């Protein structure tokens, strides 16, 4: 069972570069989320989606964009990376109000 798969797992960017993180889930979940995790700050929600074609802002959305063109995929984009975006990014999915299923994380370093 694949569950939630994130690619890439590691990435190093220079300030100002752009990139896209891909999240894919095979559980037919309606809801998908992107979180970032920083030391001492826990998981903070960036953006989420309640269904194909929909997206919404979370707690820390600035500097990120997302798209949900297919139900199983949720993309997180950084148009112009900044050192403050160095973090571990987690994708998650669930049925409404149910427990979250997380991916293994994507570690991003912005120099």
């Amino acid at each position, binding site marked *: 069972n694949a569950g939630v798969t994130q690619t890439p797992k590691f990435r190093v960017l220079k300030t100002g570069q752009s990139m896209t993180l891909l999240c894919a889930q095979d559980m037919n979940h309606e809801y998908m989320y992107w979180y970032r995790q920083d030391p001492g700050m826990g998981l903070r929600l960036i953006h989420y989606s309640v269904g194909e074609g929909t997206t919404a802002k979370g707690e820390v959305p600035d500097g990120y964009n997302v798209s949900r063109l297919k139900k199983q995929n949720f993309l997180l984009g950084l148009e112009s990376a900044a050192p403050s975006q160095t973090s571990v990014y987690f994708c998650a999915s669930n049925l409404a109000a149910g427990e979250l299923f997380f*991916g293994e994380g994507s570690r991003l370093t912005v120099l």
Partner: protein
Amino acid sequence: EDQVTQSPEALRLQEGESSSLNCSYTVSGLRGLFWYRQDPGKGPEFLFTLYSAGEEKEKERLKATLTKKESFLHITAPKPEDSATYLCAVYRYNNNDMRFGAGTRLTVKP
């Protein structure tokens, strides 16, 4: 403003030494409180969901309880393999997101 606060930040126990982790919350309209376990380099894994004050759930050496203001994760006779970061999170009515605490990093020494 809704808040989720976990304490302590870190806890070191000897194998077999029972203890409790705390998660206090102030949210408007709690729909559910969740506990997750996170191992280094991995994504969080679901442990429990609690929905109403007085509810308790158990799994092996772990027991989670819920009051109107806080939740406890009790660890009975822990083993080294229980070492991990434990996260609590709240799901609120009229919101589609789960708000997390910063976590408690538990280390169990043999």
